[in-house]
């Protein structure tokens, strides 16, 4: 299934917007995460954990799910396909992995926000720096893959290419004029 050029541009624009939004939201989250684990001001730490929960629930998770979903539609609606080129496949695996870890981590972030709000000293809480830095690295990798599109066709893509070539050669020539 190949989308019309106009629809393709709409889907692509939405995909880029949600993906870049996800990256930006993770950067904002990382700033709060660093604040939460380094600040010595109890109120600042408490506020940082509360803001982290809000950003995860209302920005990062919706943007991540939208990015994965729209990215899949975008790939399936273009000649790139979802499983034909290694860079698309690797990008899909990275984003699905990141979204899965994110969904698992959401509960932890909510827990930390609750703990920070009710504990006497939230500065002892561990933060989530490992996950936020890891998530940022994965998203930057996907951006690099999207821009550079390294070569490499999968076995499935190779078979599809061969099928398309065979169809082109067996199709009778169109008479013009």
């Amino acid at each position, binding site marked *: 299934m190949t989308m019309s050029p106009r629809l393709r541009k709409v889907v692509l624009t939405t995909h880029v917007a949600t993906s870049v939004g996800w990256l930006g939201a993770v950067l904002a989250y990382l700033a709060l995460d660093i604040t939460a*684990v380094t600040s010595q001001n109890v109120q600042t730490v408490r506020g940082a954990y509360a803001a982290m929960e809000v950003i995860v629930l209302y920005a990062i998770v919706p943007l991540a799910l939208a990015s994965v979903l729209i990215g899949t539609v975008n790939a399936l609606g273009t000649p790139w396909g979802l499983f034909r080129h290694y860079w698309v496949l*690797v990008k899909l695996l990275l984003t699905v992995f990141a979204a899965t870890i994110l969904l698992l981590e959401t509960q932890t972030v909510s827990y930390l926000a609750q703990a920070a709000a009710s504990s006497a*000293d939230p*500065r*002892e809480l*561990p933060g989530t720096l490992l996950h936020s830095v890891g998530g940022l690295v994965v998203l930057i990798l996907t951006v690099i893959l999207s821009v550079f599109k390294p*070569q490499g066709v999968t*076995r499935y893509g190779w078979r599809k290419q061969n099928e398309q070539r065979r169809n082109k050669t067996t199709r009778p020539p169109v008479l013009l004029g």
Partner: protein
Amino acid sequence: MTDPPRSNEAGEGVGVDPDRGSRRSEPPRAPRWVKVSAVVVGVLILLAVILMLTGGHGPGRHAGATGASTAAVDVPASPVSGPGANQARDGSYR
């Protein structure tokens, strides 16, 4: 995914012999960047599994570290050792 696929792809892993320009009869091999990435991911997964098994990482780390339930969150009994974790400063507000 802004550009259409390159129609003249040639070289490693694309099914076209770069020297002759003829179609290969066998499926293409995975490019080097895919193999290197797979090795790196494998090492990272191994590290994550080791960390989980040794208790240094995992979903239950935070709840276990503070010794509190989500229903009633108490002050952690001991300072938490995590990436960048703050140390308690006499438990006082500043």
